[in-house]
């Protein structure tokens, strides 16, 4: 047996400010569930910019069960600036600098750094790269396009910003900036309802492709793979390009080719190794020590003529 919530009163804000709680009218009185719903409602308020919103739910048991929802909205905050704080150690001068990764600046990443136009203290980082195949978060995409969340003029949602920064860091590394780090955002709230966000950023060195080798199969097959890969030692390492090259080799040569990469000691170099099917799949797929293999095969890959 259970009781029914006969009434929900919202005090301090319109009922539609907390619809999640307002619809509890007529439902089963379940205090634990009400608490979870209250947390959701509070998150929703904050995602709409009410960063200082407070919410308290009290139960009345006289004349049936009633809920009193006390809401304090507070100011509606908007982001005034997002800056990348690269600090003194990072001048963006490593190799050609982080802004030259070749990634397209879409102006729409929810990481927002490239389209804030306010990167006063640091280096503007590129937005998300196209063509990596990573799934697109519909909410992020929606709000990026609308400029409503984690962009200048939009509201700030910390967990989403952190998630976006993690993704940006991953993409940055995939573009050859293997030492790139993006720290937790630091926020300052102002009385005029604005927020300033600073993101600690370190670019580090940009890595190039070291050696390109092929192992397994016959010498002819290995040469064919290396030629098909079309990678060149000395080029900047670019994850999507390397993966595309492997895919191309698999397709063109119609055989199993696996990719293995390893950082070459202290140098900003990534050695790329194409492991080929020898006809014995088990042998080909075994996990040998990459560094040992590289040490014995550290020969420059034959290069195709550049166009």
């Amino acid at each position: 047996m259970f009781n029914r919530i006969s009434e929900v009163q919202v005090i301090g804000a319109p009922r539609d400010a907390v619809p999640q709680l307002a619809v509890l009218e007529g439902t089963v009185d379940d205090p634990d569930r009400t608490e979870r719903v209250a947390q959701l409602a509070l998150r929703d308020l904050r995602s709409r910019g009410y960063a200082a919103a407070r919410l308290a739910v009290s139960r009345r048991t006289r004349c049936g069960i009633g809920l009193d929802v006390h809401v304090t909205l507070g100011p509606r905050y908007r982001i005034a600036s997002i800056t990348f704080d690269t600090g003194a150690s990072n001048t963006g001068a490593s190799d050609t600098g982080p802004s030259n990764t070749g990634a397209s600046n879409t102006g729409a990443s929810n990481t927002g750094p490239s389209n804030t136009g306010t990167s006063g203290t640091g280096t503007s980082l590129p937005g998300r790269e196209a063509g990596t195949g990573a799934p697109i978060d519909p909410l992020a995409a929606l709000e990026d396009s609308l400029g409503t969340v984690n962009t200048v003029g939009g509201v700030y949602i910390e967990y989403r910003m952190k998630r976006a920064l993690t993704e940006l860091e991953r993409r940055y590394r995939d573009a050859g900036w293997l030492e790139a780090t993006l720290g937790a955002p630091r926020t300052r709230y102002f009385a005029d309802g604005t927020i300033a966000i600073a993101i600690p950023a370190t670019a580090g060195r940009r890595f190039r492709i070291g050696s390109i080798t092929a192992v397994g199969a016959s010498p002819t097959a290995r040469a064919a793979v290396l030629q098909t890969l079309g990678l060149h030692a000395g080029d900047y390492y670019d994850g999507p390009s390397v993966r595309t090259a492997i895919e191309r080799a698999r397709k063109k040569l119609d055989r199993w080719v696996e990719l293995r990469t390893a950082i070459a000691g202290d140098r900003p170099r990534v050695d790329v190794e194409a492991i080929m099917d020898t006809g014995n799949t088990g042998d080909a797929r075994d996990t040998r020590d990459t560094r040992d293999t590289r040490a014995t095969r550290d020969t420059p890959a034959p290069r195709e003529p550049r166009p």
Partner: protein
Amino acid sequence: MIARAPRTARRIAAVAVAAIAGLSGCAPPASYLGATLPQPCAAHDVEGCLGWMVERDLSEAELGLYGDTALRDYVQGIADRLATGSLLPHAPRIVITDHDGTYATSGSRIVIARPTIQRLDSEAELAGVIAHELAHIEGHHAVVSLFGPPPDADPLLLRRDAEAIADERAVALLERAGYSPSAMARALRAVLDSEDEEHPLRADRIAHVAVLAGHRTGFEGRAELLAHLDHMVAGHDSRLGHRVGDTWVIAALGVALDLEAGDVIRGTHDVLVVRRGRATLAFYPIGAPWAREIAASLTDRASETRRLGRITIGTMPGPDTPHPAGGAAGNGAGDAAGDGAGDGAGDAAGGPAGDAIGDADAATPVGKLARAVRSTLPQPLAGTRVALLERPHGALVIELSGRTLPELALRDATADELAAAEPARIVIEHAIRAGAAADALICEGRLLDDPRRRVAAGEPLKCADRALDAHELALDFIATAAP
């Protein structure tokens, strides 16, 4: 949603993402699935834009709308009545689909499945289903399912909370609108036939709403519902077609496939799979605008116009493959889909995808969004060999797999075949004697009501105008062509 809808999540995501494409300030596209984006999209009215796109997706990508205006108006009237007791300023718009899956979606839309309506016994029960979805809209629950909860929350727990709240709130909405609150329990009993982790247990849901309803009574409206169900299509999704003798007829596209001895036909939700020898082919109809986008994106594609329609054959690209600038010669797979006249080389299919969203530069936000949109609409998996047959009212997708490609001998369906492939419809008949519906001496073998239902003499009952085949009764079916 009351029960899990196969494509709900994908569709919601598609709509959300599609809306973005339209709303993006830097975006060139002004159309979505062949139609110009409406004013709400241009005016950054996200909700209005999303709602429009939901319907566009259902009609132009999935061929899924059930176009009975009178029925829609009737169901809309029920929603209007329920909304007066809700927190909403106006009633959600009702959209009726021809396939399973009832759910609330962004844009203040309630999508209700025709097969769901068929299972209900009174207007009050239908109101219960609508009230459940309306409560989701009232409580902004779609935001949870669309965008996902924050990482520190238990999504399933939140999902189950939302479903339980919608059930319970529906009882209150029914009562406020003058409907019998106890109809909610009956509605759940009628439409729930499986468990899933996103919903509380079926038995718990029914017990909760029954207790909440107590013994309060209200308007039932069985006769009102049945009057509106008269002549409604009966059975499951009719888009995949019907078997007529040794032929499979897809009436929606006017296409017939002659079955051969040993063919195995299997229907699973929205795909018809035919196994012929060592080949397996999957068929499903889609809307023409979406078909054109898919056709233009195929790699190694070749197309030609035959008596049956334009056929494009190619390989479905991966999600990151940009639209190719032009086509390439076929590889002979053309024999599989046509009448045997062509060799698949045909005329190379170049040209644009037809819709600006699909053509957007992959490096732009719109391009990325376009990929996301494409990934959510019905389409072959990446790498699949595909034949697309364009017909006047849509297109047939044929996914080709297996080591050999058989001759399919697709052809225009004859008038007789189309008549025979007409879906069964509901007819309302009246019990000749009191007792269980099964013993009411009417519509033997065609009864659509619960056979255990107690009826009085003269009471109306739902029957089909003909006996339903197995594939019309079940979402999953398997059939073998006789030698």
